[in-house]
């Protein structure tokens, strides 16, 4: 990576100078806030001018109590997982199928670029706008979705989606799938394109069927890119906030059934001004993500040994 030029130590200090501004900003706005959140999680702090007061493990004891007694924190963990899983499975399966379809060399699809762009479109629109938009589309009695379903005789009468626990959850998951399948598809397409052509040729010479080729060439070759995708999706999914927050005006209604962990942090921190407790929730969420990712990677690596 470092070639002849970099051996020339005469200039090395310039490199340090060049990366310095980046790291000053990073230290102030990324690293310090993380350490600060850890510190604040051991305090009671009501914000504004009153300084935080050290209380040791009190916030964490409250967290465990909430988990044990089934408080909203436990509920928010469950909700976040439900929303993520119901979205990620159809999203990945659909994205993979579409990626295979659109990269197929023997059946060139016309307008590939167009489809790729339009499938990706929902992903770049502001999530707050999407949430507001769907709160009207899912409206009752006259949202577009009710109008269509009743018009097609799928429903007899308008259904109040956002007052039913599972309808709200599945609506959010479906919107997330709709927003992200194009993004995931693009990444899988890039991954498939990077697979050496000889592997497909060899499979063809061996007379492998479409499905066999997919199973024994495409899928194993996509392994690292899929692992990466799952990890980033876990991290992003478990820090979900914008969509359920705006769709339910921050209430997580009905009955906190879509209150996510980050929504809970925001509510505790900036509605209840229990910033110390909110920090403890954030650290809890961080450890949660860390453990999940570690287990997932361990599981993946174990499978690789076969």
């Amino acid at each position: 990576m470092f070639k002849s030029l970099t051996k020339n130590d005469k200039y090395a200090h310039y490199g340090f100078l060049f990366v310095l501004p980046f790291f000053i900003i990073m230290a102030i706005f990324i690293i310090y806030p993380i350490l600060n959140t850890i510190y604040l999680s051991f305090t009671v702090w009501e914000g504004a001018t009153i300084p935080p007061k050290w209380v040791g493990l009190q916030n964490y004891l409250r967290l465990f109590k909430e988990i044990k007694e089934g408080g909203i924190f436990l509920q928010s963990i469950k909700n976040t997982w439900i929303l993520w899983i119901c979205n990620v499975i159809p999203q990945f399966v659909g994205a993979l199928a579409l990626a295979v379809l659109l990269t197929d060399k023997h059946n060139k699809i016309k307008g590939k670029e167009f489809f790729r762009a339009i499938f990706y479109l929902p992903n770049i629109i502001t999530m707050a706008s999407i949430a507001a938009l769907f709160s009207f589309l899912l409206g009752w009695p006259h949202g577009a979705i009710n109008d269509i379903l009743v018009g097609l005789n799928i429903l007899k009468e308008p259904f109040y989606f956002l007052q039913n626990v599972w309808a709200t959850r599945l609506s959010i998951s479906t919107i997330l799938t709709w927003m992200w399948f194009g993004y995931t598809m693009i990444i899988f397409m890039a991954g498939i394109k990077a697979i050496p052509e000889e592997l497909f040729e060899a499979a063809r010479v061996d007379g492998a069927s479409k499905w066999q080729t997919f199973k024994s060439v495409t899928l194993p070759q996509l392994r690292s890119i899929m692992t990466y995708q799952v990890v980033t999706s876990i991290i992003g999914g478990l820090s979900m906030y914008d969509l359920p927050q705006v769709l339910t005006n921050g209430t997580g209604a009905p009955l906190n059934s879509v209150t996510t962990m980050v929504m809970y942090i925001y509510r505790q921190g900036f509605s209840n001004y229990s910033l110390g407790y909110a920090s403890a929730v954030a650290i809890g969420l961080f450890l949660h993500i860390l453990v999940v990712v570690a287990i997932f990677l361990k599981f993946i690596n174990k499978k690789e040994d076969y």
Partner: protein
Amino acid sequence: MSTLTVRKSRSPFKIGILDIILYIFLIGLAIVCFLPFYFMIINATHNNAAIAQGLNFLPGKYTWANYTKMSERINIWRGFLNSFIVSGVGTALLAYFGTLTAYGFSKYKFLGNKTLFWVILCSMMIPPQLSVIGFYDVVQKLKLLNNHLALILPMIASAQFVYFVRLYLDAALPDSIIESARIDGASEFGIFNRMVLPIASPSIATMGMFNFINSWNQLLVPQIVLRKEALQTVPILVANAKGIYRTDYAAASMAIALSVVPILIAFAFFSKRIIGGVTAGAVKG
């Protein structure tokens, strides 16, 4: 689905049918991707009575009336200006300092080069939502609450930007060019400003656009930093509009449509570059 085996069967008719099904499916999916935005834009041109009666497929005549009603409560143009200040200035600063950082990592073997680069890679894995309370505290201590700088400055520390531009410079900037510039007497900063920046510009454009969009769409952090309405960005205004116009669908639709249309237009022009940014981030996997 339809390819290899179908090809072997040599039946042009069969190919035809499978292809038609395939295209109908793809076009249907494309419509699903666009339809919600279409309904929102159409609703923004109707009054509440028309919206309440059922689905509208064609534009109505209440565009201006809805716009006037919306403007009474929300200054969306102010929101656009705020969003542009935050995302625009932030992206410009990132373009300069981020490239400077990428160049530093790419071409100078200073002490701690590898360690610091590793720190950057790790920071990509930590979602900013988690340290939001600590961030709020820092912003407050720096007296940057209700100040756009609290959102602009952190944009400089974009790990993806540095990662990708560095890869680009590793490949596109030969050491010999820098050597010969030095022999000609150019200063290190001069080399960066006059040679490295232009050479890196394709990667800067790709990642710059990616970061601009990311910043534009942020909700949580701006919500915490910008409490004054006159400073708030478009996503916050849209999130609030939903509450303000609880029953006034027409006015709210107008606000939402206005927040979406500029992105649709920008995407129509830059979709290739934007998608290039997505792919750029993926290849590292």
